[in-house]
């Protein structure tokens, strides 16, 4: 397994973490006042989409690096 695949795997885990963090923020938002947690949740979900898009781009761009 080379660095290219390890990086793609790490970004996949990062995207999953962003989803988990977004869910955690939503959970806290339901228990506390203020919209800070809601904004953080939306940012986390957007980050998750961004990471998945980056992962696809990275794998396509580095297809020749083995």
């Amino acid at each position, binding site marked *: 397994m*080379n*660095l*290219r695949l*390890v*990086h793609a795997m*790490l*970004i996949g*885990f*990062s995207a999953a*973490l962003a989803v*988990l*963090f977004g869910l*955690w923020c939503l959970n*806290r938002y339901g228990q506390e006042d203020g919209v800070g947690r809601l904004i*953080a949740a939306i940012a986390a979900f957007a980050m998750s989409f961004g*990471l998945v898009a*980056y992962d696809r781009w*990275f794998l396509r761009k*580095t297809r020749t*690096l083995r």
Partner: protein
Amino acid sequence: MEIPYTVEVRRDTGLTNGKIGIWLFLASEVMLFGALFASYILIRTGAPTWPRGDTMLNVPLATVNTIVLISSSVTMVMAWASLMRRRFETYRIYMGLTILCGLAFLVIKYFEYSAHFHEGALPSTNNFLAIYFTLTGLHGLHVAGGMAVNAYFWGPGAKLYKTNPVWFTNRVEHAGLFWHFVDLVWIFLFPTLYLL
């Protein structure tokens, strides 16, 4: 004496010796952190009460640190990709950014630790803080070690590129594998300690 299989792969393993070495090392690291994670689970499940991480720790700072580390993995892989495409100057820029990200992570961690110590929250205070300082402290040492290796390959170690670019690229890939392992450990540490 020449070191064998630095560039060409061994026929029996299908890998260079360096890559076998780094994967064996990472396997031992998985056992080290795995044992500590197992200790955390045992201590937590055996405790009558357990504090919620976000009530004792600074989640916003840790979130910033998570973003910094993920960014550093991107710059690290770009550094390696630059070498694969024989763009040495681009490699230097990306490797420099990786080192700066590592430094930023440690500076943020220093502020986090300082705030805990200022509040009297020490490893001896309770089991949660004991395992928190053990896991994050060991992880911080790994970040510092990875930074030292990266700084060597950014500075004096880069001389090898002139004489043997393929060997140098392989070495940077091995450093990158270690750096990604350190990032992966944080991706598990962050939710375990701060969120759950």
